[in-house]
């Protein structure tokens, strides 16, 4: 379970959001500039709230009143960015293996094979990020985040930088991931996308939560 109750001032923009999510896939819905990315950056620990609490499965990640801030690398929260952010100096195989190495996890080739199969990235393993298409890059980024064995996966408009055709190419993989059962927070401004993926919706408007509930709040 994810519990968020934070405030953050970013220049002129103020973000004040509180929600709890039991859902497997929490859809964070809102127009651009609504504060979605700032909110998941706080969940990831990349941004510190001015005030408030973030807790995941009973563990406090942020609590400003107690001075608690768990740094991103100790949160075990995976993050798939809109722009993939693959490491340009590493090939696909090394990118995928990065989280395992940093967390000093044992080599788990069955997990590795399962995820490369799930995302169909086996044929890309020896390529460099510069030699991948946008859709391929995004699939590798997904695989990289998953292989670090996160307890929660954040996805920030993972289809945002792709054209319609490419979106259709990635969406089935995201559905497969959801059915794998890993909890996700999925950020999007596209209601249709969220209707397909999310089990619970948090609607955000100008830094405030305006609606909470099942996918029917999207209508």
């Amino acid at each position, binding site marked *: 379970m994810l519990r968020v109750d934070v405030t953050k001032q970013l220049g002129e923009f103020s973000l004040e959001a509180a929600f709890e999510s039991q859902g497997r896939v929490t859809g964070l819905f809102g127009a651009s500039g609504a504060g979605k990315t700032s909110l998941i950056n706080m969940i*990831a*620990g*990349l941004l510190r709230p001015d005030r408030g609490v973030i807790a995941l499965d009973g563990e406090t990640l942020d609590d400003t009143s107690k001075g608690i801030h768990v*740094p*991103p*690398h100790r*949160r*075990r*929260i*995976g*993050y798939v*960015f809109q*722009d993939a*952010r*693959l*490491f*340009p*100096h590493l090939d696909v195989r090394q990118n995928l293996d*990065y*989280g395992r190495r*940093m*967390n000093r996890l044992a080599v788990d080739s069955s997990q590795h094979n399962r995820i490369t199969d799930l995302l169909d990235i086996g044929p890309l393993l020896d390529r*460099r*990020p*510069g*030699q991948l298409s946008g859709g391929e890059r995004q699939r590798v980024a997904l695989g*990289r*985040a998953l292989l*670090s064995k996160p307890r929660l996966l954040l996805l920030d408009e993972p289809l945002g930088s792709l054209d319609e055709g490419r979106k259709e190419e990635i969406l089935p993989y995201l559905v497969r991931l959801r059915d794998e059962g890993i909890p996700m927070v999925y950020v999007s401004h596209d209601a249709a996308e969220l209707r397909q993926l999310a089990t619970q919706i948090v609607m955000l408007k100008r830094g405030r939560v305006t609606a909470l509930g099942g996918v029917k709040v999207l209508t």
Partner: protein
Amino acid sequence: MFEISPAEWTAILLSLRVAVVATLVATPFGIALAWLLARREFWGKSILDALVHLPLVLPPVVTGYLLLLTFGRRGLVGAWLADNLGIVFAFRWTGAALACGIMSFPLLVRPIRLSIEAIDRRLEQASSTLGAAPWQVFATVTLPLALPGVLAGMVLGFAKAIGEFGATITFVSNIPGETQTISSAIYSLIQTPDGDTAAGRLVLISIVIAMGALIASEWFARRATKRLHGN
């Protein structure tokens, strides 16, 4: 014309040794300082920045004299190092290396700093969400991506160190076999009546070394761009 005498060889090899040691010892400090200047905000940052660049604008003889006052036999640091650790800089080749290291430091730091500043910080964020502690982020993302800049800085620093003259001769004098580098050998030769040919040889050699260093540095800079684009 192209017969290099043993004395000239001694000067060439000493120059190379001094420049290599100066560059290798200065590099870790250069990386640390470049990272600090590129990535951290702190009180006195502009003073530190100015201090790093000082040897570039100060007359070399001043830097050499300050080194003599500090690291000489009776200098504050020099006396302590000699008494407690047995390290002597004054009139030794190690002193020449120290002078060259300090004189070339601004040239070493600059390309490293620029290449660290050019790295997309969002890659470092991605690295931390994958479980990398700050030092791991530095070792596995920042440093490898800055590596071509580090090498370019080392090459430039090396080229500067091998040509250093003013600070070196002021600090450790011009002793053949101990502190006489190519530059100070040329200086001595052009002051002796028939030293012209020998001086010409050494001049040619220093041009070759400097050109080689600049070409290598250019090559590393081009590699840096390629690497950052992930091809």
